[in-house]
C-alpha cells in the first residue's frame, strides 16, 4: 500500500509581517511527483522550507514520512534532498569537491565511480569537474546541484525551480531523471513557474495563490494533465 510521504496540514507561516502560507493542506504519496505552480510570492519556496524545518511554523504541521519537520528537523532533513532555485554550492570548490563535502556531511560515502556516474548523468562536461564553480555557468551549477541531490539517494526530493537556467536539452534530461527517480519510489515535490514542464513530469499539479492551495489537477489515465484548465485558472486568479 502506498504511504503518505509528505503532508501539509493547515500550514501557516509568517515571514516578517507577511502571512506567506495561510492554512495550506495537501498530501504527496510515495513515488509521486507533485508540482506546485504559482506566481511570485504565492508561497511556493516557503512550502519547501517548511518541510525542511527551516522556518517557524505558526500553525499546522509539515510532516515528512510521518515525522514533524518542526519537531524533528535534523531527522527529517536526512530523508530529504533539497535543490534550491539558485544552485547553492561553494564557488571556491570544484564539482567533485562540492559533492564530496556535502555528501560527507550527510554521512554518505560515495566512491569516485558513483560521483562520476552522477555527473555524467546530468551531462556536466567532464573537463569542468575539477574547475572551481565560480567558472561555471548557471546551468552547469544547476547540474552539479542535481547530481548532489541524486547522490543523496533520499526517499524525498524537494526541487525549487529545478529547470531554471537549464537549456532545453538539459531540461529534457532532467525530466527523465525525475521520472526515473519516481519509478523507484522517490517522492518528488517541485515548485516551479514552468507550467508546461510541470505538466510533463508531474502526476499532480497544485495551483497556489496567496499562501493557499486553490486547486489540484491530476493526470488522466494516459498521464496527461489539462494544461489549458490550469492556465485559465491561473490567469483568472491573477486577474482577480
Amino acid at each position: 500500500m502506498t504511504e503518505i510521504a509528505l503532508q501539509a496540514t493547515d500550514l501557516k507561516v509568517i515571514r516578517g509581517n507577511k502571512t506567506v502560507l495561510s492554512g495550506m493542506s495537501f498530501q504527496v504519496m510515495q513515488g509521486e511527483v507533485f508540482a506546485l505552480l504559482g506566481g511570485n510570492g504565492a508561497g511556493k519556496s516557503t512550502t519547501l522550507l517548511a518541510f525542511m524545518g527551516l522556518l517557524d511554523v505558526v500553525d499546522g504541521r509539515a510532516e515528512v514520512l510521518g515525522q514533524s519537520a518542526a519537531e524533528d528537523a535534523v531527522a527529517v532533513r536526512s530523508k530529504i534532498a533539497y535543490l534550491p532555485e539558485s544552485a547553492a554550492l561553494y564557488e571556491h570548490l570544484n564539482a567533485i569537491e562540492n559533492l564530496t563535502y556535502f555528501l560527507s556531511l550527510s554521512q554518505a560515502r560515495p566512491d569516485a565511480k558513483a560521483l562520476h556516474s552522477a555527473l555524467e548523468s546530468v551531462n556536466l562536461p567532464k573537463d569542468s569537474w575539477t574547475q572551481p564553480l565560480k567558472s561555471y555557468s548557471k546551468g552547469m551549477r544547476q547540474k552539479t546541484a542535481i547530481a548532489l541531490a541524486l547522490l543523496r539517494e533520499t526517499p524525498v526530493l524537494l526541487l525549487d525551480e529545478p529547470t531554471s537556467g537549464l537549456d532545453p536539452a538539459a531540461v529534457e534530461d532532467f525530466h527523465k531523471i525525475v521520472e526515473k527517480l519516481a519509478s523507484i519510489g522517490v517522492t518528488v515535490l517541485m515548485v516551479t513557474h514552468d507550467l508546461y514542464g510541470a505538466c510533463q513530469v508531474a502526476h499532480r499539479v497544485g495551483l497556489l495563490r496567496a499562501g493557499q492551495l486553490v486547486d489540484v489537477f491530476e493526470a488522466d489515465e494516459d498521464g496527461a494533465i489539462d494544461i489549458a484548465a490550469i492556465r485559465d485558472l491561473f490567469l483568472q486568479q491573477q486577474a482577480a
Partner: protein
Amino acid sequence: MNPILLIANDELRFWRRSKLAWTVLTTLVVVSVCAAFVSNTEVSRRAQERLAQQAEADAIFQAQPDRHPHRMVHYGHYVYRTASPLAVIDSGINSMVGTSIFLEGHRQNTATFASARETGLLSRFGNFSPAFALQSLVPLLLIICGFASVTREKENKTLYQLIGQGIGNTSLLLGKSLALWSLALLALIPLIALGLSATGADIFDFRQSLGGLTFGYLLYLSIWVLLIVGVSALVRTSTQSLSVLLGVWIVSVVLMPRVAGAYANAAAPSPTQIETNLRLAETMRSGGDSHDIEDSAFMDLRERTLAEYNVESIEELPFNYRGFVALRGEEADTEVLNQFAEERMVRELEQKRVADSFSALSPIIAMRAFSMALTGTALQDHHHFLRAAEDYRYDMVQSFNRLQMTGMTLADDLARNTDAESGRRTRLDAAAWREMPVFELQPLSHAQRWQAASQAGFIMVLWLLVAFGLLLFAGRRLQA
C-alpha cells in the same frame, strides 16, 4: 568524520583559497611576531639598563668614604625594580609607574609618591606587546576573518544545502567556531615561545604561570570566537554582522577600559600629590625633628630613657643619645610614612576594584587583570616592590642610626662640626656600608599571582558561558 570537524575543515579550506583570509593571517602573524620582537627587545633593554644602574648605584654607595653614619642616611641609595620574566608578554602597569626609588632617611621618595593620582592607569590603550596584540588586535582580526562565517552561507544560499544534509544548527556553528578558534591558537604561538624562552630571576616559578596565562588567553579568544560566530548566525547579512561586531569591539576594547578608568577615578578619587605632601609634612612636623635632641616632641622619650637606665643626664647613658633619638625618630616617621603609603595603596586598589567591576561589561578588562596578575606586572606587584623597597630603606637607615648610637659618644657627636678631633672620631669606617646587603626583590609567588588572577579568571569563565549561550541561542534561531 564528525560533521563539526568537516565544517571546520571546509571553513579552513575556504580561508586557504581566500585572499582576505590570507591577508588577515599574514597580518596576524606579522602583528604577533612584531609584538613579540618589540616587547622582547624593549624589556631586555630596560632590564639591562636597570641591572647596570643598580650595579652602579650599589658601587657608588659602597665606595663612599669614611663618614658620619647620619650623612649616609641622607646620602641615600637607589634601588631598581627588575621586571618579571613574563613582562616580555605583558608589561602591565610597569611603563606607567616608577621602577626606581631613591631611599633616604625620613622620606619615602619617587615611585611611592610620584603617582599620587592613578590617572588613567587602567585606561591606557597599552604598549605594543604580545598582550596588547592578543587582547586588542587579534579579536579584530578574528572579526575580519569570521564575521561572514555564517552570513556568507545565508547570502550564497549554501546554508540550505548545509542544513539540508541533515546536520544540526549547533554542529554547524561549532564547526565554524572551531575553524576560527584554530586561528586564535596560531596567535598564541609567539606568547608560548616568548614565555618559554624568557629568562630571569624565579623563571621556574614564572613558567608555572605561563600555562595559566596561555589558558587565560585561550579562554579570552574563545569568548570572541563564539561571539563572532553567534552574531554572524543571528543577523541576516555580512554587512550587519561586520557592523555589529566592530561596534562590540570598539565599545569593549577601546571605550570600556577608558570609561572604567575614568569612572574609577571619579568613584574613588585620590588627593593630588601636593595635597598628599602638605598633609604628610604637617603630620611629620607634629612628630618633631629627630635631628634636634632638644625638640620638645622628644622630651617624653628622654624622661623615659633616663628613668629606664636610672641616670640623671643623657651624657650618662651607655650609648649616644643622639643616635637613639634618630633611631626612635625614624621609627615614628616611618610609621607615619607607611600609614600614608598604605592609605594610597588602598585607594589605588579601590580604584582597581571599581575599574575591574567593568569586566562584567567587557571581557578585555578581566583579561587585562588576569594577564597582569600572572605576568607579575599588576598593581599588587608594584605595591609589593614599594613595600620591599621601604623595608630595605628602613633597615638601611636604622642600621646607620644604630651605628651612630653605638659607634660614638654623645660628646663627640655634638662637637663633630666644631672640633676636628671629634669630627674624625665620628667618621665611621666605610666597611660599614660596604657590608650593607644589596636590594633584591623577591617577586610574588606563583600561588600569590594565581590568587590575584582568580577573580578575573572566574569572570572570563562566566563570559565564556554567556558567549556559548549566545551561540546555542543563535543555533536555535538560525534560519536560511
